[in-house]
């Protein structure tokens, strides 16, 4: 078995257009997991004891679930559940929705932890000072606490985005044609040949993507802290 550099380049070019699906899945998961995480973080930091217990249970549960198993549970389980609850048939929805939903559910927990930690790095006095000069509690949060918390959270957020990108690779197993799905397809087009070249190209794309993502969040964090 020898390495064919031209096949490597060919699969690289064949895979690259599907990067937009990978990025779409990651971006949508980031958006929805931020929303879910925000709610869960508010639950933990809030005064309501039921909210606290539910949020904590959700985070503990998600920390223990393998991504692929959650993906299968959502993909096979949610159509039945939705049919039973609302009578609507979502069986023929595109697999990408199930992938985004399960990734958001999974990473909502880590986003919640991240937000809670970031919120707690901001000194309590900051909020009190803001309220004392006449800002409303919402303004105090939005204008004073949030900007500081966001800067503190940036490097960790970079890691979270990288793991969202990486977990997104599992979506190919339910039929989403992202870069991983495309790579497998290219291999079957080649009748199972040039496996090394194709998957190496795939791994290279992911590696560059991860390194660039993590680095840019670090740089951004440093810049904002200085300014």
């Amino acid at each position: 078995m020898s390495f064919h550099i031209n096949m490597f380049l060919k699969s690289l070019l064949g895979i690259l257009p599907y990067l937009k699906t990978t990025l779409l899945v990651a971006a949508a998961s980031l958006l929805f997991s931020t929303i879910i995480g925000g709610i869960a973080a508010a639950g933990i930091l809030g005064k309501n004891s039921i909210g606290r217990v539910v949020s904590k249970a959700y985070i503990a549960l998600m920390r223990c679930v393998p991504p692929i198993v959650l993906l299968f549970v959502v993909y096979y389980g949610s159509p039945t559940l939705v049919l039973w609850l609302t009578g609507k048939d979502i069986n023929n929805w595109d697999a990408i929705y199930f992938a985004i939903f399960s990734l958001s559910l999974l990473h909502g927990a880590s986003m919640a932890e991240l937000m809670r930690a970031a919120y707690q790095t901001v000194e309590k006095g900051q909020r009190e000072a803001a309220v004392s000069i006449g800002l409303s509690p919402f303004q105090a949060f939005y204008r004073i606490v949030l900007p500081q918390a966001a800067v503190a959270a940036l490097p960790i957020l970079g890691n979270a985005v990288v793991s969202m990108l990486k977990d997104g690779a599992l979506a190919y197993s339910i039929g989403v044609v992202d870069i991983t799905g495309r790579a497998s397809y290219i291999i079957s087009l080649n009748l199972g040949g040039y496996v090394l070249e194709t998957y190496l190209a795939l791994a290279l794309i992911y590696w560059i993507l991860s390194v660039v993502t993590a680095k840019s969040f670090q740089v951004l964090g440093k810049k904002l802290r200085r300014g």
Partner: protein
Amino acid sequence: MKLSIPFIIETFKNAMGAVPVTLSLAVVPFLIGRVLAFLLALAQINKVRFFGRFASVYVSIIRGTPAVVLVLLLYNTLPGQLSAFFKAIGSDFNVYRQIPGIAYAYFIFTLTATAFLIEIFRSAIGSVDKGQLEAAYTIGLNPFQAYTRIILPQAITLAMPNLCNLLVVLVKNTSLAFMMTVKDLTQTAKLGAALNYRYAESYIVILIIYVIICLSIEGISKVIENKLAYKVR
């Protein structure tokens, strides 16, 4: 939606039989990886010429690529490469028949575990005060003694929470072993689901088992952490 209770119980029983496989796929790579990772972490900290650089690139590659892609890449190419190798040296060893899928699973999971362990050891050793090592040298310990007697015990205590966390991550990672024809938890669920056409129940059962495993690891680790913390004080 109709849940079949007998099916759930049956799946649960089948899946429990696969728990040892899943656990060993997490624990064995952890045990093998920690030796390699410790040496590489030391190389990285002390900026040893080749190995220090190798460790950083290695960690970056393994942490920067999804575990599935690593499995797809190595599981689909290694047997062919090995086979070619054995043919080249004139051995009639049949790679495809004599190396089971689980061997590749152990190998690949060891690669990932090592990368994560390097990171953990590096940060733990780095956070032990530098004066400790210098003090150890001044009282006449050699580097080996200084590390094993002074630095390591402190570093391990610091690394304990991360190590337990890693074990949970590794257990979750083993769910990919089904791609290598290993009969682990996920594989039993997959087979049961396909045979009985009950996908949701099957996967929910193993999800619960994974949660129980990981919560137990976390519980045990809390106990160990508390004990170690007491000793340090």
